[in-house]
């Protein structure tokens, strides 16, 4: 067989195994290595809610998809070119993601009678049963080879088995011509302090996997994905959405001069933000792991009152619990950032899967007339700017701000050209200026005539003693049940939020003509998929993406008015399109929705868009 090295523009690899097989690590190592190599990439971890679901079963399969390309790729890819399946269950649940031309690499040792039965195969030929027998199949005895590789290592059998993923990674590195140096460095960093004895065995297994792949005849071709030549010069790093969110908040803390306080309760898939902030106490961040979601937001509201940049992070069910306290923050007009990393709902729903179904909760989920700004991040690295902007709006407009992220963004990663903080604006909260004239009494709810924002008197300042709370009051801060006053305050609070529109960037047509038949509209984490889909469809359609949802960008109506139809695509049953229909009812809206706990596929978006032109 003639071995060929084929140069590809992009490739999608899906690593799948038991939730204890280390597939998330294998996938992220492959991604990080490719990023440093100079490729564009996007990742998509797809894992079960159970930490160690029953061994060998379909429900326990953990997957990690990585899309690498010469240039930026935008999405983790719909279907894969290589599926790595560490056991029959992984093959069973992931075969459907294989391209017709895909290569499938499995650990043959795991495909014994027991393993096949656990995965629920009814014949002894899993490939034919799944109708993937025509793909390039590589059945390698990975378990045996790993054991053989480490037989003289002195490691116990359990530890030896844990090194299987390194053998697999070595094989993948051969197939895609990846240099192993980065992984060597990673192993040294990870194990040098606590387990130096694991460095050499892991390196050996990695190398043996690489060499095994090179020696067997089963792999017809190998591939290269050249590093980009068009990338903007600068320093890059790989970043996940949750990490970027945490860092964006730290950036806002620096630019405002206010210490960061995060009161949160662990919840999937938002926990990594709290964990990340807990690491960075050196930047003055205080994190409080609260006794529950309510205490998370309430400690944050207390910290805000006391003059910190206050944050609480959560996911859908946690947001439900925070609802009453959100109303308090609206009523007391205190700055607060609430990060909701959305997951499949309702109730506990699909904790590790992605969805955009908390939008209605973010917009309306409170008692009374209770508006607050809602903004959304559109990619893992964009979470940095989104978090920064959420904090800026909160602090400068004295309001809680809801930042919507998604499991897909929080766990996903992409390379990021590191920005310079010199390019970010200062954040200037409306502090009282410290002096009251003789006989003057501080009026805590007196408003700036332009923005309707009240002034912030942080406790500790002489003469500014005042009370805030959940009861209705007048501008002087005195409790009031006067009907006219209540209506005035309701209107002013709403108008204050509406006027945030003058401080946010206008909506842009990201692709396609400024007018025409069809405008495709998205919001949040569907950005990469939609952009790819619209590019594929071509110039017949235009595309606009909303980062700011409440208030809508001031020019939204103007942009919409140039199109005959507006197709709103989102990962829910139509929450944003419903909001648009209510806000700007004069336009002709169409909708395309998916509620499967999975991101869009570019291919299905292309079909949906083509149907409307």
């Amino acid at each position, binding site marked *: 067989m003639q071995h060929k090295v084929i140069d590809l523009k992009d490739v999608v690899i899906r690593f799948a195994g038991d939730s204890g097989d280390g597939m998330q690590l294998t996938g992220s190592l492959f991604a990080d290595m490719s990023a*440093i190599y*100079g490729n564009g990439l996007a990742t998509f971890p797809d894992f079960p809610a159970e930490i160690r679901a029953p061994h060998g079963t379909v429900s326990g399969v953990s997957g990690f998809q990585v899309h690498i390309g010469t240039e930026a790729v935008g999405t983790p890819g719909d279907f894969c070119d290589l599926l790595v399946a560490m056991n029959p269950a992984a093959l069973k649940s992931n075969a459907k993601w294989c391209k017709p031309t895909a290569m499938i690499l499995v650990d043959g040792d795991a495909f014994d009678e027991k393993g096949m039965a656990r995965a629920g195969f009814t014949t002894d030929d899993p490939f034919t049963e799944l109708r993937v027998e025509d793909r390039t199949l590589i059945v390698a005895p990975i378990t045996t080879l790993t054991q053989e590789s480490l037989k003289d290592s002195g490691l116990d059998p359990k530890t030896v088995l844990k090194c299987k993923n390194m053998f697999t990674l070595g094989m993948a590195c051969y197939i895609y011509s990846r240099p192993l140096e980065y992984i060597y460095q990673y192993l040294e960093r990870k194990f040098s302090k606590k387990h130096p004895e694991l460095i050499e065995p892991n390196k050996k297994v990695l190398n043996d996997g690489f060499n095994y792949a090179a020696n067997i005849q089963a792999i017809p071709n190998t591939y290269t994905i050249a590093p980009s030549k068009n*990338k*903007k*010069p*600068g*320093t*890059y*790093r790989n970043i996940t959405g949750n990490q970027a969110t945490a*860092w964006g908040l730290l*950036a806002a803390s*620096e630019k405002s001069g206010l210490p960061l*306080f995060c*009161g949160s309760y662990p919840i999937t898939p938002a926990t990594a933000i709290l964990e990340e902030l807990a690491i*960075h*106490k*050196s*930047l*003055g*961040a*205080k994190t*409080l792991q609260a*006794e*529950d979601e*309510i*205490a998370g937001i*309430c*400690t944050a*509201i*207390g*910290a*805000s*009152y*006391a*003059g*910190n940049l*206050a944050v609480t992070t959560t996911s859908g069910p946690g947001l439900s619990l925070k609802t*009453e*306290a959100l*109303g*308090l923050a609206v009523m*007391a007009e205190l700055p607060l950032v609430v990060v909701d990393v959305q997951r499949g709902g309702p109730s506990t729903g699909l904790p590790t899967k992605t969805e955009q179904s908390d939008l209605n909760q973010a917009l309306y989920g409170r008692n009374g007339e209770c508006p607050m700004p809602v903004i959304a991040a559109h990619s893992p690295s964009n979470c940095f700017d989104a978090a920064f902007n959420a904090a800026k709006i909160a602090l400068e407009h004295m309001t809680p701000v809801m930042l919507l992220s998604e499991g897909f963004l929080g766990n996903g990663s992409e390379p990021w050209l*590191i*920005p*310079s*903080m010199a390019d970010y604006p200062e954040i200037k909260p409306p502090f009282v200026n410290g002096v009251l004239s003789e006989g003057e009494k501080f009026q805590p709810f007196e408003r700036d005539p332009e923005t309707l924002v009240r002034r912030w008197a*942080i*406790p*500790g*300042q*002489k003469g*500014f*003693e005042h*009370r*805030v*709370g*959940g*009861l209705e009051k007048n501008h002087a801060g*005195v*409790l009031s049940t006067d009907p006219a006053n209540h209506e005035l305050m309701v209107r002013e609070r709403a108008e204050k939020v509406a006027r945030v529109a003058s401080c946010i960037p206008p909506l842009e047509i990201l692709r396609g003509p400024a007018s025409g038949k069809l405008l495709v509209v998205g919001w949040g984490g569907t950005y990469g998929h939609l952009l790819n889909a619209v590019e594929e469809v071509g110039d017949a359609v235009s595309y606009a993406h909303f980062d700011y949802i409440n208030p809508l960008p001031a020019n939204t109506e103007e942009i919409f008015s140039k199109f005959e139809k507006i197709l709103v695509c989102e990962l829910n049953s139509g929450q944003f399109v419903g909001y648009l229909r209510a806000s700007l009812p004069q336009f002709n809206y169409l909708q395309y929705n998916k509620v499967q706990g999975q991101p869009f596929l570019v291919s299905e978006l292309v079909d949906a868009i083509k149907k409307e032109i």
Partner: protein
Amino acid sequence: MANLTFKDFKSDQEVRWCPGCGDHAVLAALQRALPKVSSALNYEKERYVVVSGIGCSSRLPYYMDTYGFHSIHGRATAISTGIKVANPWLTVWQACGDGDALAIGGNHFIHAIRRNIDINIILFNNQIYGLTKGQYSPTSKFGAITKTSPYGTVEHPFNPGSLVLGAKGTFFARSLDVELKLNEEIMTAAALHDGCSVMEMLTNCVIFNDGAHKSISDPEVRADRTIVLRDGEKMVFGKNSDKGLVYDGKKLRVIHIGEGGYTLDDVLVHHPHEDNIGIQMALADMKGPDYPVALGVIRDVKDITYDDGVRDQVKDVMAKSKIHSVDELLHSGSTWEVK
């Protein structure tokens, strides 16, 4: 430091509690205690923040001319915690009722105590929901007849003292609304205590639970049915100071001094600063008719506070870390250059 008086702590708001409500007296004691605390600790008035949840007693912040936060039902303790952690320089007082702190806010209450956050919690215990007009609370006596228990409750009440000590609280005191002087004393001790101080004030609700504490607060019987505990003093009580508490090897016992072979020497001495919680728990648990109800500071011990712990850890990490700006953070770890 200007000499502050109780007038400095009175706001211009009209106090709207019912005439005869026990809350008036607790407010008065607080307004009298804070000037003393201020001179003892050299605290300016602007340093005080008074926080509350929801309920009759939670209106208290409006009546104090300090920074104040009237929050939502049950959550005052969480709000107070956030304020104190964010700015440990502030001194935080909290007013909450038995329903607010022990029912809807029970979780925050025990966790604030567990963390030993340096806040001062005044727990107004009138054993009833007053603001919603008379439903039983978590401290209502077993069998209490209220609007939601017309045939009597079938649930046991919390004893706030046991709850606080069970969560390893570092400060617990109890008093009656009418004990103005004792309450000033307790509030001052709470302010001087570094850590979570809980002061249970047995208050009377004249409208919905009148006389709930009458069996111990009535001036006729108070001296015989309560005991005021003070650091280093013998546990003696009674109109004629002729009764005392002894430990009989199994439990506390009330004895008559000079009877049954007991002398004053046998009577226990109160040690609120003793770390061992045993006798203090027994004192907090005492109730009639066999025992007097313990008033005064029952426990007051030192331990690390949460707010100090957070602050010190931040300082410590700041001193050791190599990352001191967001630019440095962004460039930390694995990065690569594109030229």
